[in-house]
């Protein structure tokens, strides 16, 4: 779950990290009112789940009410790499002397935490990693030990920050690591982490990804989920508890299991078609799940055919067949369905489905043939409403 900048700062502040005072504004009037309360100069920042906001004109300095209003009006509604700005963060402007980078995440290969610290902050860290990897000081942290102050001091020294802020950095990184661990974040990043004109270390931006699996011990996570941007189809699927990702093709995909769903999307592409979505209905395939899945996929106006790919393991072919027959009795599906049913009792399931077969529901002998049939069916209906 990715947080917006202002949510990330709120999250950091709760762990004692130094952030700037600010307010959320959804309209230009609110932005001006917020700026009046905070005091000029302020920074007007677009709140979207995407990087590169500054370059796109989504971050501006406002020195008076007129300037704040002008910038707020320009930024609201701005399209930043496909994300339309609907929310602003108005924050007291900071006096920047130096810009650093600090972050923690899991190093999957090492199966340990990884801290990254650089005196070259304020720019895309992946670019720094590619062009000047030696400029990033890395530290591996054993999760049972945590970040010890000796190790942290050594790490700060390696990063060659301004020696005057060493003690502050050790203290701040300890807080950031606590936020990462105790807050159950997959990723925390401060870029830039600045040194102010007065020589104070300060959090100027926040990138936080929380682990949705840890929501059971963080009830406040639910509020963050509400601001996650989803397109209409994803919103609908999310509300129905389906694992759905919208793509931009014409062949709708429904499969049981994430791996099989990914493989199904791939095989549609391989057959010369374009997948409209990824949808994993999980282990079972009962009528409730199947009808919800069919409705979501068929509700996508781009979809011209639907490829259902089910491999029965513990779930038997008969149960899958029953689910599909019942679902089709409940919902009216416009697109032709191509079904591939394999695995446990696939033959019995196929027998049950036989009387229900038509132009609207056809069976395919295997995955590859099913993809071909679905792509052909989609092409045949190209341009139809």
């Amino acid at each position: 779950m990715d947080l917006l900048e202002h949510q990330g700062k709120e999250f950091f502040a709760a762990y004692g990290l130094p952030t700037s005072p600010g307010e959320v504004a959804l309209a230009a009037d609110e932005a001006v009112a917020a700026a009046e309360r905070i005091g000029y100069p302020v920074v007007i920042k677009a709140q979207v789940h995407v990087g590169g906001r500054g370059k796109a004109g989504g971050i501006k300095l406002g020195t008076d009410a007129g300037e704040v209003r002008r910038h707020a009006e320009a930024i609201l509604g701005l399209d930043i790499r496909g994300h339309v700005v609907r929310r602003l963060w108005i924050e007291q402007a900071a006096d920047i002397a130096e810009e650093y980078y600090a972050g923690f995440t899991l190093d999957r290969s090492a199966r340990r935490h990884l801290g990254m610290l650089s005196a070259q902050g304020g720019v895309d860290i992946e670019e720094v990693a590619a062009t000047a990897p030696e400029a990033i000081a890395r530290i591996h942290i054993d999760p049972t030990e945590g970040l010890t102050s000796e190790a942290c001091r050594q790490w700060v020294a390696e990063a060659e920050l301004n020696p005057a802020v060493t003690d502050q950095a050790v203290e701040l990184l300890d807080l950031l690591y606590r936020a990462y661990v105790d807050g159950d974040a997959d990723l925390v990043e401060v870029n830039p982490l600045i040194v102010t004109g007065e020589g104070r270390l300060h959090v100027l931006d926040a990138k936080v990804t929380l682990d949705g699996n840890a929501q059971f011990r963080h009830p406040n996570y639910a509020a963050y989920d509400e601001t996650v941007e989803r397109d209409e189809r994803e919103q609908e699927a999310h509300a129905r508890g389906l694992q759905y990702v919208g793509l931009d093709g014409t062949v709708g995909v429904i499969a049981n299991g994430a791996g099989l769903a990914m493989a199904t999307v791939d095989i549609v592409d391989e057959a010369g078609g374009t997948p409209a979505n990824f949808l994993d209905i999980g282990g079972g395939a009962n009528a409730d799940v199947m009808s919800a899945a069919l409705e979501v996929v068929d509700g996508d106006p781009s979809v011209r055919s639907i490829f259902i790919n089910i491999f029965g393991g513990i779930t038997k072919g008969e149960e899958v067949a029953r689910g599909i027959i019942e679902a089709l009795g409940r919902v009216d599906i416009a697109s032709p369905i191509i079904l591939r049913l394999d695995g446990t009792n696939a033959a019995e399931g196929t027998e049950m489905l036989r009387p229900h077969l038509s132009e609207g529901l056809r069976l395919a002998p295997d995955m590859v043939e099913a993809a071909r049939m679905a792509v052909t069916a989609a092409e045949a209906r190209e341009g139809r409403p």
Partner: protein
Amino acid sequence: MSIFVDENTRVVYQGLTGSAGRYYGLLNRDYGTQVVAGTHPRKAGSDVDGIPIFATVGEATEATGADTSCIFVPAPGVPGAVLEAAEGGVRFIVVITEGVPMHDEARTFAHLQRHHPEVRLLGPNCPGVISPGHCNIGITAGHIAKPGGPVGIVSRSGTLTYQALHELKEKGIGCTTCVGIGGDPVPGTNFIDCLAAFEEDPDTEAVMLIGEIGGSAEEEAAEFIAEHLSKPVVAYIAGMTAPPGKKMGHAGAIVSGGRGTAAAKVEALGAAGVRVGSNPTQAGELMAEVVAGL
């Protein structure tokens, strides 16, 4: 022969009294697995269809000689259950439960490495392990796997594992052991652990590896294969067409910042001499060719 488990493996189920634990525990027993015990802190002395329940794993291993644990408890209880199993004396712990927080996984794995280095953890969020004809621990439908050999399977994805077993069985090819390592951020057992074990197993003559987008586990596996594997490997990688930044189902499956792409994984595996199928069916066909040439 097989890796990690065989017909002598004796399993205690933590969570046997719950609905999923009971369902799969009994299915595993029907398959022939030695399901010798279950645990529940307040139901000691009772039984689940004749399988005795103990208060702790320690008591269960003492009384039944269990050497392996299979965990079905809810996600918040998983770290405690794993530690209990390790302290209770089992050598192998299989965690089926999904939804375990990343930090819990990282802490638990590090704790085992430090205090119980002899214990192997598989999962969390994995389908388990099956040595067809001998032992099935977890949620794999046993009958889709053909016993025997010569293929060993290791997979990050549940349903694609079943698909692979099925493809091989259709072609009359048996499997020594099929290990589902799961797609979570901190897998207790990874590709390399399984590849090393298959290399040592005399009955495994070829390995099928099923990976997916996200992380760099497949690239690391490729490096290991190039350096250490004498046996042929066939692979399939799911997610060729996955768009960057979108999580496909579970925590591991995401292409971010140009990393973790299927193309990079396919290239790395190809460079290591692995034959990579463009879909699961083709991977099955490639494996049939490899087996025919053994």
